[in-house]
Every structure is written in C-alpha cells, then in structure tokens.
C-alpha cells in the first residue's frame, strides 16, 4: 500500500514536471517570441523571420509540444503501471 501511494505520487509529480516544461515552451512560442517580432526581422527563406514564425514556426512548435506530450505520457503510464487496459 505504501509503495502504491509512492508510485502515484511519483507519477503525478513527473506529469506535473512534463506539463510545466511544455507549458513554458508553449508560452515562449505562442506569446514570448512575438513580443520581439520587430527585432527578429532578418531574412529567412524570403520571409522576415518573425512573419514566418507567426505563420508557421509557432504552429510547428505547437504540434511538436502535443506530440511529445502524448509520447512522454504514454511512457510514464507504462513505467508507473498506469497503462490502460486496451479497449
């Protein structure tokens, strides 16, 4: 029972850490970087970099965030015995 409780605590703590790190990345890609849009004006395959970032770069980071989250969480589920019964 003790170890069961411990297992749950560790799982939730790690979930929290993953969530926090990815949320920070989300904040930087979604809001932070666009604050400096005027300064990131260098040429990037024709686009001004910050234009590309707003039109594509941030979106790709968002996709990366949700994919990485799904992947890490599936691994965490397995490691801590919270893998769902298939169905």
């Amino acid at each position, binding site marked *: 029972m003790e170890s069961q409780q411990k297992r*749950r605590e560790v*799982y*939730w703590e790690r*979930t929290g850490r993953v*969530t926090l790190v*990815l*949320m920070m990345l*989300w904040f930087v*890609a*979604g*809001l932070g970087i*666009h*604050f400096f*849009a*005027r300064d990131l*004006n260098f040429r*990037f*395959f*024709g*686009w*001004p970099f*910050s*234009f*590309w970032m*707003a*039109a*594509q770069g*941030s*979106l*790709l980071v*968002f*996709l990366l*965030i*949700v*994919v990485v*989250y*799904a992947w890490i*969480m*599936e691994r965490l*589920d397995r490691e801590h*015995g*919270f*893998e*769902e*019964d*298939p*169905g």
Partner: protein
Amino acid sequence: MGRVPRSMRPSQSASATQRAAEQEGLGRELNVLLAWFTLGVVGFIVLLGLLEFMGLSRRWIGMTFLMGTLALYATIGILSRTTDAAEYYVAGRRVPAFHNGMATGSDWMSAASFIGVAGTLYLTGYNGLAFIIGWTGGYCLVALLLAPYLRRFGQFTISDFLGERYGGLMPRLLAIAAAILCSFVYVVAQIYGVGIVTARLTGVDFEVGIFLGLGGILVCSFLGGMRAVTWTQVAQYVILMIAYLVPVVWLSVKQTGVPVPQAVYGYQLEKVSAMEQRLIDDPREIEVRQAYAQLAEQLRQKLRDPGPALRQERRQAEQRLAMLQASLAPALEIAAAEKALAGLPRDVPSARAQWSQALAQAEVKSRPLNGMPPHAQQFAGDPNGSPAERSEFELSRLNFLALVFCLMVGTAALPHILIRYYTVPSVTQARRSVAWSVLFILLLYVTAPALAVLVKYEVLSMVVGTEFSRLPEWVAAWNRVDPSLLAVTDINRDGILQLNEMTMGGDVIVLAAPAIAGLPYVVSALVAAGALAAALSTADGLLLTISSALSHDLYYKMIDPEASTARRVTIAKVLLLIVALAAAYIAAQRPADILFLVSAAFSFAAAAFFPALVLGIFWKRATGLAASLGMLAGLGLTMYYMAVNQPWLRSVLGIVRPVDLWWGIQPISAGVFGVPLGFAVIVLVSLIAPERPNASAALVERIRYPKD
C-alpha cells in the same frame, strides 16, 4: 477506460487483447473507407469538370455540388441514427484518435476560418496572424491541461464535469448558461454563413438558403447525434481541405512553378513588399490619395451642418436635372441625373449616417496602400520613431498579444471542442487525438497566409496599374455578384486602376481565388461546397452541445433524474430542432456585427470555463462556492468591458458614457481581464472559505491517473 467494466482485470486479458485487435481492425477498415471516399470526391470533381467542359451550365454545377454534398451528409446521418444515450452524446466512445482528430478539425474550422481568415490576412497582413497563432496554440492547453483528464472523467458534457467536481447546483447551472451563450452566438454565425454560401452556389434567396442548409444540419445531428456528427465531420474535413488547397496550389504553380505554396510564398512576400514600397511613392497613387483626402474634407464640412448641406445638394441636383431636360439632353444622361436625385438621403439623420460612412471610407482610401499596413510589417507604428509612433507601436503589439491570449484560452474552453475528446476510447487515445487535431487544423492554417500573399501578389502585379478596359475578367464578375465585395472607381480619371481605387471585402479572397487563379467554374463551386462543409460541420457540433446542455444537464441531471434513456434522447432531439430553428430565425434577420459576436464568444468561453476547469483538475482545494463566484466574476467582467467599449454593443444597450479602455486593450480581447480575475477569485475564495471535508478530492485524485 471509462467504458471498460471494472470486472475486466488481468484474468480476462484475453478478451481485452481481442478488443484491442478489434479496435485496430476497425481503424484499418475505416482508413480504407476514407481513402476510397477521398478518391470518390476527387472523381466527382473531375467528372463535373468534364461535364462543364462539355457545356453543363454553372447553375447546374452549383446545384449538383449542393445536392450531392447534402445527400452525402444525410446518408451518413441516416446510417448512424441512434436512440442510445452514449451513442447519441459521445458516439459510443469508440472513435479512433485519428478520425476524432479529423472530426475535431472540421468541427473547429468554421465558416469564419474557411472564408474569413485569408481575407483578414489579406487586409491586415502580419497583424492577422494573431488568429493563426491563437486558434492553433489553444490546442496545447487542451492537450496539456484538459483533454486527458476530461476523458478519464468520462461523462457526456462539460457541465457534467463542473457539476460533479464542484457539487451543488450553481456550478452546473452556470456552466449550462455559459455553454449556451457561447455556442448559440457561434451557431447563428454558422447558419448565416450557410445561407450566404447556399445562395451563391445555387442562386436561391438567402432565406431559402438558410433553410436548405438547416435541413442538411438537422438530418445529421437530429437522427444520429454525436455518432452521425462525427462521421459527417470526417467527410466534411476531406471536402473542405481539398476545396481549400486546389486554388492555392494552382496559384502557386502559376506564380512560382512550385506546387507547395506553404514552402515558397516567402519569396512572393518579398516581391509583394517591394511592390508595396513602389506603390507608396507612386505619383499616381499619391494623386488618388489626395483626391480622396479632398473628398473626405468635403464630407467633413457637410457633416458639420448636415441640414443646409443636404438642402443645397438637393437644389443642385434638381437644377441639373431641369437644365438637362430643358436642353433636350440624351435620355441616358437625364436618367442618370434622376437617379442621382433619387439617391440623395431622404432626411438629415440618414444623410448623417450615409456621409459618415462615406467619410470613413474616404479616410481609409486617403492612406497609403488603401489603408492596409505593409503586408510583412509587424505591428503598427515605429519603436524608433516619434513618441506618438512609439506609443502606437506599443499599443499595437500589446493588442496583438492580448488577442492571441484570448483566442488560445478561448479555444481551450469552447465546450463543443472539449466534448469531442469524450468520444475516444481511452486517455491515451485522447492525448494522441489532440495531436492529430493540431495536425489537421495546421494544414489549413499554414495555407491561409500563403493564399493571402499569393492573391496580393496577383492583385498588385496583374490588376493594379492596368487599364480599366483590360482588367481581368474576375474583377467584373465579382463586382456583379456583390459590389460590397469588390468595387473599382476611376477617381482621378486616368483610365488606369490604382490600388486605392479598388475596394475589396475580405470574403472575396477565398471565394474568388479559383477565378483569380484562372481555374474553371467547377473549382469555384467546389470552394463554395467546402465553405458550406466548414459551416455545417461547426454548426452540427455546436447544436449538439446546446441540446446536450439542455437535455442532459438541465433536464436529466436537474429536473428528472428518473428519465429513461430513450426519453432523454428524444428530448435532446426535440430541443435540437427548437434551438436550430431559433438560430435560423435570428440568422435570417441578418444581425449586424456577427463577426464581432463570434470573436466575443472566445473571450466569454475563456473567462467562464478555463479557470474553473483547470483549477478543478489541478488544485484539490478549489471549492464549489469559489468556482461559482470565479465563473460569475470572470464572465461578468468580460461582458462589462465589452458592453462599455464595443461600438455596436454600446449603441444596442444605449451606453453614452465615454469609452474607457484599460491599458488600451480592445474590447474583443476582454478575456485578458476576465481570465486572471476568474483564477484570482477561485483561489482567494477557496483559501478564505475552505470546504472540509472536501467531497470531490476523490474525483480529482481519480482523474489524474489513466487507470485506478
């Protein structure tokens, strides 16, 4: 997990494995079906293209598209009809992650996304990208903070979660009210879009179009609920994506020779920026701007004292008419003079309204680039310029970020999106499903800015600077369809079109893209069918959300908990019909400022739901009283800020107090105040008045783990 019976433990793992295999087999079968379906759609388009080549009339092509797609959606609806509650509300929780991602994509992409975004980007350049970032970034919040936990909770609606988590009547009631408020505003806009597109596609009246489209929505969601809506949305995603991509890819091939517009439009943007710089300094453009500045000055003078100005104008028009009649001028000229006289405003209030509108337009047109900012320029103003330019820059940047924030948080709080993640089989599938959703949504949103740039390149290089007599055919064609969408006037009478002599409405960008790219009419009809699919799919999801809130949350959970499943589903269907008719009725009145209302729905949803949902999952000590007060405070502040500051709401509510913007934030982003206030109130009240013992701690504990 929610649907796996508790008795199913490792001892029965054989049957569990079997189920997994079945699920996988189902997924594979569905993918084959989907591939065939996509081929079928392409074949249908090619066939109609051939028929057009052989002389089928445009009206018939439009009709075939309308009837063909509506019949398709109806067939899916009829095949998926159900009276089972789990099937009706959450599609039996058997939708594979991939297909749910697709359905979420078309549930998400509304008429506004399909038609409006590229138009906004064309008109506002970089600043419009706030919509692109906001409407995708919100899914990170859905994935990280909400979807897996809501799926683990595993009921039917969002009010269910808030009701169970916080207990008591208030949270559930508030959630029902907020869900209906956000979704209803949104569904009216969709049905409005359906009416416009149907009317365009077939030439029927707007009102008839609304009810035709309504039929399409109803056969689907009425009969089969979420199950039918899900599979229709998958089909609609395929159609709307093909429709969006074909003209953009073609334009890209035409301009750059590369069929991947998303990868190469940076170079076109560079050319657009260079052309814009030339146009700013072009002497003829300056001449046109000065002409409009003069016009604006005249209008300003007239508006200073509209009464005498109107009398004088009428006198002049009458004199001119009398003179022409006396001199036996050609009938055409006399008719024109008569028309000018009849076109004068009837009285002083209408003169004031008409002239104010004309003044606003003339003021825009006396600015460089027809009032549009240079396409690639980030924010307005100049950080290194005069104090006024500096503060304009700061303000523009602040509002950009505020809008991004509201759209992201609003995305993560719209009930019709969140309930989609109840329909997948497990928590794992819910996480994967968000990833698929982002991918499918991203496909459209990385294409929209490309379309805007390619169309701008086409307009600046092929249309601007051309003689009026030699303008491309699509200019005249769209002017005939609706002068508010596209109009040209030769104000400096040089016979050549300057940029500022052309007025383009945002909606025309997507709708006219096939014609601009020089594609046959069948593609225009396809684009209209795609817009219809986008509007219908979103309307389906929204109507279902509203009717679930009423039938499941209000009727079943609060009025008659004894009701049988069949009775609940029947009530849901009746309510759906009533709500749909009400929404159609309001849409038929052509409400003003519908776009503002849609954007407002994001701020409302963000302020009402987001703090209560997130704290409900991540903070065990959040109490029911705190959640109710937090939702009320957040929503209340957001509504107040909008009502006091938004011009249309001010006029509707008769507010005369001066506009009072906080830190210069536009009313559309009122959620930036509502969301933090919601969080603060919930935290403070929970700390001041803690609940002991906290009844819902067990629930919170349960949903944090995918398995007991």
